[in-house]
């Protein structure tokens, strides 16, 4: 009886050719995740457009230029006649940086006067600026060391390794987090939608009828399928994105999967709470959007949480995304120590329970209220028809 009611309600909610639900539950989360992965498909920054102001037309200047040209990170797009021309090119967004080979550079270098080569880079392009200046520095330092001390090795060589992301690729740095953030938002939006469309369409009585008069059955039929579908999608997208990094062990996979499940449960629960509070789909969706859309900025993957003000750190703490990203980043380090991940997992479980209990309570009240309203509506309609 209960199972029958449950299945019937699930069918009515999820298999009723509701195109909007299909879009927000399946098409958009997967589509947007794959699209985001595709944007970073080149993985590393290459061919950063730069300019050169060649005040010195010596052999040294030509040699430096050809060395810069041979770097895969840089792309010499323009040779400017003066600094103003290059500066305007930066303002127009045609180049990201430019360097000046000063007058008499070769002559002064040979006389050991160490002529300084100024490099101007645009601070408005943080990422490309970082890569371009690093590459320019290393190319020019290598060229300089060949001039007088070609036989002499540098005493110290430095190698930087990014643990868990050996190639320092941006699918590892950013997209794993972005995909999780997309599902963080998706769970809130879908939670708000599934809980509010019976209210919007005045179908609460009908839905409770399918559920055999049980509000608990209606809640289970509303919440469980969306959580499972979103969780499976997020796992699939995460695994697809993770293929470029070191493979996860079974334990790490279970940990990541569990974290994503509790995040989705907590976020869909929060979406339901918004419906319980506002009672309107557009208000609940708006609230979910205002909190969920910028969540990635607060979660600490692009800008560390430790460098944020205290109040913002508190806000970051209450976002499930922050804890999932912590678990995901711990899993990137390999099987060293799982204990910190367990702490984040406990927080996620607590969040999932809290938001779902609160959501169930508020929705139960809303359903009661709407059943009364719908009954009154039907009675009024009947009376009008009789009249």
């Amino acid at each position, binding site marked *: 009886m209960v199972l029958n009611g449950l299945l019937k309600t699930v069918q009515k909610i999820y298999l009723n050719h509701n195109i*909007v639900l299909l879009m927000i539950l399946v098409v*958009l989360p997967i589509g947007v995740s794959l*699209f985001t992965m*595709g944007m970073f*498909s080149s993985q590393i*920054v290459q*061919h950063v*457009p730069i300019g050169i102001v060649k005040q010195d037309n010596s052999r040294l200047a030509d040699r*430096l230029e050809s060395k810069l040209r041979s770097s895969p990170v840089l792309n010499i797009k323009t040779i400017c006649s003066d600094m103003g021309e290059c500066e305007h090119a930066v*303002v*127009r967004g045609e180049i990201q940086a430019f360097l000046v080979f000063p007058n008499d*550079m070769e002559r002064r270098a*040979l006389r*050991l006067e*160490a*002529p*300084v080569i*100024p490099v101007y*880079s*645009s*601070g*408005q*392009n943080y*990422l490309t600026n*970082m890569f371009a200046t690093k590459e320019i520095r290393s190319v020019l*330092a290598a060229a*300089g060391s060949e001039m007088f*001390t070609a036989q*002499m090795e*540098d*005493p*110290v060589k*430095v190698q*930087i*390794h*990014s*643990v*868990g*992301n050996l190639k320092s690729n*941006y699918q590892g*740095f950013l997209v*794993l987090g972005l995909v999780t953030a997309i599902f963080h*938002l*998706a769970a809130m*939006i879908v939670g708000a939608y599934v809980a509010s469309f019976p209210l919007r369409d005045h179908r609460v009585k009908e839905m409770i009828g399918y559920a055999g008069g049980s509000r608990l059955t209606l809640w289970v039929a509303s919440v469980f399928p969306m959580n499972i579908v979103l969780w499976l999608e997020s796992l699939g997208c995460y695994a697809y994105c993770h293929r470029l990094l070191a493979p996860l062990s079974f334990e790490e996979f279970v940990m990541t999967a569990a974290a994503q499940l509790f995040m989705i449960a907590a976020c869909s629960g929060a979406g339901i709470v918004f419906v319980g509070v506002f009672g309107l789909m*557009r208000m609940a969706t*708006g609230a979910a*959007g*205002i909190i*969920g*859309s910028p969540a990635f900025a607060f979660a600490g*993957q692009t*800008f*560390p949480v430790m*460098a*944020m003000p205290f*109040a913002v750190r508190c806000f970051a703490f209450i976002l499930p995304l922050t804890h999932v990203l912590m678990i995901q980043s711990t899993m*990137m*380090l390999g099987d060293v120590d799982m204990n*910190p991940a367990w702490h984040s997992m406990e927080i996620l479980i607590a969040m999932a329970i809290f938001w779902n209990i609160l959501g169930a309570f508020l929705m139960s009240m809303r359903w009661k209220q709407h059943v009364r309203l719908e009954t009154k509506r039907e009675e009024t309609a009947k009376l009008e028809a009789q009249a």
Partner: protein
Amino acid sequence: MIKRLLKVAFAEWKLIYTDPAAVLLLVVAGLIYAFYYPVPYIYQTVSKVPVAVVDLDNTAMSRDLTRMASAAQQIEVKSIYTDMKEAEAAMARDEIYGFMVIPENMEKDIRGKHQVTVNIFTHGAYVMFHGAIGTAFSTCALTVGATNKVKQIALSKKVPSAKAIAMRDPIPISIQTLYNSTGGYANYVVPSVLVVILQQSLIIGICVLGGSRAHRRFRKKMRDSPVENETAEYRYFGRSLAFFVHYCSFILFYHCIVYNIFDFPRRGELLPMVVFSIVFLSSVINFGMVISQIFLRRETSMQLFLYMSIPVLFLANFSWPAYLMPQWMTAISYILPSTFAVPAWLSIEQMGADIYDVAPKLYQLAVQAIIYLILGLLLTHVRDKAKINAGDM
């Protein structure tokens, strides 16, 4: 004519402030985001990141290198280990975000003119930490290397130290960061995001209010009002005018108040800013008017555009260069006003570009505005004639 237009605009403006969903999107979102988004980055840069040093050499030179690392502004050396596993475990516990391994016999090898490799390990999940830790540790290690190389040059070539320094690095470079001299993260990210916020909230807001369509179902009581029964052109331009004026005030608010509070660079000249505001808002409003004719329900646009917020941000070409994206994605990005508006706004406001510098981007925005205007008017006529029973718009 103007009176009729203003009447429609005024009615729409009134609706913006009386419909709770419109208030949330068109007023509250724009205000809240202006403060909510920049606050995490208020300290602008990452400093004192907890790190460790694994000293396998334990000599005077390795201790010098550790001291140098401790003095670096970006990092804070929390522990010194003698075993790499201890550092790995500390990184897994999130106590540190990176460590430097000073190899065994470093001092001996350097004195014996053998090259040594100093390995730096950073947490693979955090891009900012990777940059900060890598730069700080490598600067220290390379300084130790440079000092020793200068000594070697001075001794082998029998030259004074000043000449040895010049021989080691005969063409030194000096890096100047333009338009963001402090290298602040907020200066880089927030101005671009503000433009995207304006675009997204305006498009969703227009869709929630049904664009320019006649007889909006959610305004049942107003169905007979003369304003709702105006001709399509008056409805279109009148309502567009209301959104335009409303969002002009937001641009002014961001420029005069938000930029001042958070101390973002503000180099915008009046003419390019005015032209930018006109073409950007025209393009976004017309785009919103087109999109609003597609949906049957008020909330659907919200659901769609909230999902799109992350890709829209990255397609705007400020954080990940467009030339590194697949071409078909770049082609898709041309649909969105933000693709041209974000670089144009950064050029004007952050870099002080004149009208000639940003003209190509403003032309592209203007072309978008014209195309969407034609489409919007066309779709409004089609929608007005169509009989649709479902939905609330």
